[in-house]
């Protein structure tokens, strides 16, 4: 390739500036509150330079490891999900007149288009799944409105956590598609790949230099090494029939003894989509807002129908999560609902590991 | 003077915090019996504190009183830090003062507008008063709301806030949150300025009395979270010496204690604070006070309502001053290393001095605790005041008028009966 693809580290600010010039609100990763969190990004200096993440089941620590790199960590609790599928949003508002007449009014998000810097391959794979879910036969207009403007700058993952297993699900660590721009971080700068016309337009505004073959090879090696370093994996293939054949497996009860039924796994999972709706009327009763919030198959409300809770105990709730995530997703969306990001393992307060549970239930190699 | 016999019993006082009753019997034109009965059941807080970790103390003591939880947390924090020999540093001290300003603001605004004003304007409740004086009630509600939000900035919620800890705070508000708060504080200043004149213009009874004022005193500032205990009679002691001068007495009609200074009743709270700290008022507040024409130190107990208005203004100015200098700290708290020993803390709750003492073991577990809240300190003074006020008012006044005057006198102290009664165990320590 002849054209320039290398963005020196000192010129990284130009990426933020170019995106802002194009009218985007730019967010990127920052080290705050003990984790990598997305927040508005004005200045490259706000990137988590030198920070490393340590992740284990139920354990996350940021450490200042030094070095020039800003993306030398795997991921934080958030994927792209919160940006598109909001954890709490008003869907519509209704006003009731004195004669009892009601007027309904949708409350569409009115946010400037968003550019996210730092998305990982697993996040993009999850996004593709959420797109299928929310933009399928029936479009969710709220998700769609945000999705339309979304600009993604992916960063290939070179520092997987101990909890990561995207290589085994086939979703990473290299971001293959679904981005506008993708970066490979090197010590002194970034290799830039273009994934869309919008990406090309932004790239055209960057002071790119020619990349050497050595740089390109080095980047590829780092990604390959990242894949090789992953130790966790899911049993291969489609687990749907294996899981549904083992609905009585003793392991469901065993994991329920440990599981808090707290829903952290589903909340951090970038593909989980369950939500609940409720009304929030004003005290005087003249208006009401219809609000949706993230829900989880680990709550009681998820499965209650007048007086009966179909999944009252933890074992059937955990079973619902796993049979759905690794099983029913295949029927619903043509693939497993797990993209190997490991978040549910890290952010589970008691460190339950779905790869371990799936292996125990399906039996390795049986699927 | 008539020779009739009057028996007034108000079984449940309204517009005070907690449950109290008033009993007044006049025989042959003389007061035969007069008592502010406090019958709230004790909740044994000092006992619960025993065996708990120092990290739990702030969350426990907050529950003594829903109206002034910040005061309990601040007195406890300073006593525990005293025990551990810990100096939390200027950022924490400044932000504690801001946190405390929030509580003064909400508590005083609530008292002036919702609890006391109906007495002076002739209504049974603020809700009834709102029909004729909506602007007064709204001003009260909005200042109170601002105070609550200031507490929330540091504590997450205004009742039993969660943000404070021994050594400082768990969390520092962001610059953006502080900026937004500053804007609101500045916007509230005109209302607070007007409030001082308004309070002074209320038809307050004229009733000069002799009493001893006791308050904290700080080398430079109006006292809040730090200071020595001083009195209008020259007392000047460190909080650790409190027990050498103040003693409590248990009277049969009440389940609360009467604290006495050298055997005599005394006053704590806004009027006592103002009487003793006029020279510590910000210039602007002082000017507004002088413009009212009321001379301080004042011997009219009803000037407490003016003192509260003055302290609202002061709290706003102080919060603005301190937040204007706000910066994000490296850490919002200093590290705590427990050690065995005793610690004392006294701070100015909205209602007056709140004194704590803890004895801790080396692991930082509380072995003994003692807490003296403002209302039990004012209790003897309230009864003394009632007696004098009613005599001055005239015992031959109609029952309803007598009753109302008695209630007005009591409410003027903003007594917090919930606080007062949770310390009956104090009795024990001296048994």
């Amino acid at each position, binding site marked *: 390739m002849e054209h320039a693809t290398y963005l020196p580290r000192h010129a990284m600010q130009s990426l933020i500036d170019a995106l802002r010039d194009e009218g985007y609100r730019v967010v990127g990763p920052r080290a705050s509150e003990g984790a990598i969190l997305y927040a508005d990004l004005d200045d490259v200096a706000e990137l988590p330079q030198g920070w490393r993440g340590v992740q284990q089941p139920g354990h996350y620590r940021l450490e200042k490891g030094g070095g020039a790199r800003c993306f030398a960590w795997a991921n934080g609790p958030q994927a792209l999900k919160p940006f598109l599928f909001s954890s709490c949003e008003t869907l519509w508002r209704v006003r009731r007149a004195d004669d009892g007449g009601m007027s309904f009014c949708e409350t569409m998000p009115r946010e400037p288009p968003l550019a996210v810097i730092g998305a990982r391959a697993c996040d993009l794979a999850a996004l593709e799944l959420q797109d299928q879910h929310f933009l399928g*036969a*029936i479009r969710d207009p709220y998700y769609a409105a945000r999705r339309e403007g979304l600009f993604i700058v992916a960063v290939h993952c070179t520092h997987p956590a101990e909890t990561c297993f995207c290589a085994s699900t086939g979703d990473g660590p290299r971001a293959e598609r679904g981005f506008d721009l993708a970066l490979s971080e090197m010590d002194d700068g970034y290799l830039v790949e273009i994934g869309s016309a919008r990406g090309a337009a932004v790239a055209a505004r960057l002071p790119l230099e020619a990349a050497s073959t050595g740089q390109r090879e080095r980047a590829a090696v780092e990604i390959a090494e990242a894949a090789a370093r992953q130790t966790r994996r899911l049993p291969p293939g489609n687990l749907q029939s294996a899981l549904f054949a083992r609905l009585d497996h003793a392991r469901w009860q065993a994991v329920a003894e440990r599981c808090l039924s707290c829903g952290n796994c589903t909340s951090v999972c970038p593909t989980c989509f369950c939500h609940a709706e409720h009304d929030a009327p004003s005290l005087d009763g003249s208006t*009401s807002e219809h609000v949706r919030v993230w829900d989880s198959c680990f709550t009681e409300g998820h499965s209650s129908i007048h007086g009966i809770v179909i999944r009252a105990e933890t074992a*059937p709730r955990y079973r619902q999560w796993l049979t759905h995530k690794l099983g029913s997703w295949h029927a619903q969306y043509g693939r497993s609902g797990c993209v190997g990001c490991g978040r549910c393992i890290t952010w589970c307060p008691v460190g339950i590991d779905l790869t371990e549970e799936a292996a125990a239930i399906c039996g390795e190699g049986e699927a | 003077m008539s020779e009739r016999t009057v028996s007034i019993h108000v079984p449940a006082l309204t517009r005070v915090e907690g449950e109290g009753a008033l009993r007044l019997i006049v025989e042959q034109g003389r007061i035969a019996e007069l008592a502010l009965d406090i019958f709230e059941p004790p909740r044994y807080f000092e006992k619960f504190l025993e065996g708990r970790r120092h990290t739990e103390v702030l969350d426990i003591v907050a529950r003594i009183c829903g109206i002034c939880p910040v005061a309990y947390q601040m007195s406890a924090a300073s006593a525990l830090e005293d025990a551990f020999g810990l100096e939390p540093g200027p950022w924490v001290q400044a932000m504690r003062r801001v946190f405390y300003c929030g509580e003064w603001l909400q508590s005083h605004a609530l008292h002036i507008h919702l609890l006391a004003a109906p007495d002076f304007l002739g209504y049974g409740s603020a809700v009834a008063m709102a029909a004729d004086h909506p602007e007064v009630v709204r001003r009260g509600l909005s200042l109170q709301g601002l105070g609550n939000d200031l507490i929330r900035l540091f504590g997450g919620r205004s009742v039993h806030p969660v943000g404070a800890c021994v050594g400082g705070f768990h969390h520092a508000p962001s610059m953006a949150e502080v900026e937004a708060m500053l804007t609101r504080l500045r916007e509230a200043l005109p209302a607070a300025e007007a409030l001082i004149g308004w309070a002074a213009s209320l038809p307050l009874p004229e009733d000069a009395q002799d009493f001893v004022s006791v308050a904290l005193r700080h080398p430079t500032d109006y006292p809040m979270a730090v200071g020595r205990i001083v009195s209008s009679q020259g007392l000047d002691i460190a909080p650790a010496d409190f027990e050498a001068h103040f003693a409590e007495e248990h009277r049969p009609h009440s389940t609360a204690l009467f604290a006495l200074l050298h055997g005599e009743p005394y006053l704590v709270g806004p009027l006592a604070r103002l009487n003793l700290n006029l020279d510590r008022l910000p210039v602007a507040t002082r000017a507004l006070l002088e413009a009212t024409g009321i001379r301080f130190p004042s011997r009219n107990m009803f000037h407490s309502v003016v003192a509260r208005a003055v302290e609202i203004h002061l709290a706003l100015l102080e919060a603005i001053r301190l937040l204007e200098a706000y910066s994000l700290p490296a850490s919002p708290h200093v590290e705590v290393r427990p050690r065995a020993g005793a610690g004392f803390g006294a701070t100015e709750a909205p209602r007056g001095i709140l004194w704590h003492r803890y004895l801790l073991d080396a692991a930082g577990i509380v072995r003994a605790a003692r807490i003296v809240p403002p209302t039990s300190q004012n209790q003897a003074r309230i009864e003394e005041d009632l007696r004098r006020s009613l005599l001055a008012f005239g015992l031959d006044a109609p029952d309803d008028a007598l009753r109302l005057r008695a209630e007005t006198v009591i409410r003027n102290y903003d007594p917090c009966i919930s606080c007062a009664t949770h310390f009956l165990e104090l009795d024990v320590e001296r048994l």
Partner: protein
Amino acid sequence: MNPYLPREAEIVERIQETPTVFTLRLRLADGAPYAFAPGQFNMLYLYGVGEVPISIVGDDAGEGLLTHTIRAVGRVTRGLAALGAGDRIGLRGPFGRGWPLTEAEGRDVVVVTGGLGCAPSVSIIHRILRRREHYGRLTIIQGVKHADDLIWRAQYEAWAKAPKVRVLLAANVAPPGWGGHVGLVTALFDRLEVDAGLAMAMLCGPEGMMKAAATGLIRQGLAEENIFLSMERNMQCAVGHCGHCQFGPRFVCRDGPVFAWPEVRDLLGTRGF
């Protein structure tokens, strides 16, 4: 169009069916055309309180009114029960997949309902009776726990008088004088007079009853793929987004609520699904 946004509907008539069951007849305020298939449902919105999925009983041809029969069980339905003619509610729909009434043309149809399962099935009966000549024999089998639970008795009697219609009633508990069978509905299957190879069955009611009925009908020679049933799960969005109604891989709101027996056979009755 925003699938989440309700429209306004006015209650034109309210009928108390039993102490806890009532029927609302609704007119859409915007007057826009509204077409539905029997078995589909609407989300009814009670102002300031919330939405609930309720089957569409009928549209009372010509009048342009929508009929819903509702049992007052919880927050929203009890609140709806307190409304009367002239009151407004919100409505969105129709949602889901209804009964296979086109496929059933020319065949015998067996409708088996239990408890209050009758609401979704009434629309089947209405449709068949209105186009009577398009269908074969219609057998209506209704089971209730207690004889007193039977609502619309007069309606059953009227249906029984229609051409080629049989009504069989069963109650687990019944006082003397109850005209129907005492015991389980499945016991009535022996009396079926249908062309078993082609007949279609449509079931509605408690899941245990539907499972027993399907098994019984298969034993009578009905083909598994000709047995359909209507399912109920918690529903928030009704458009397959909220995830609550999942039944294994199916979204009840979108893939159902009417399913062919083979689609749900394996999971039906499994605790926790």
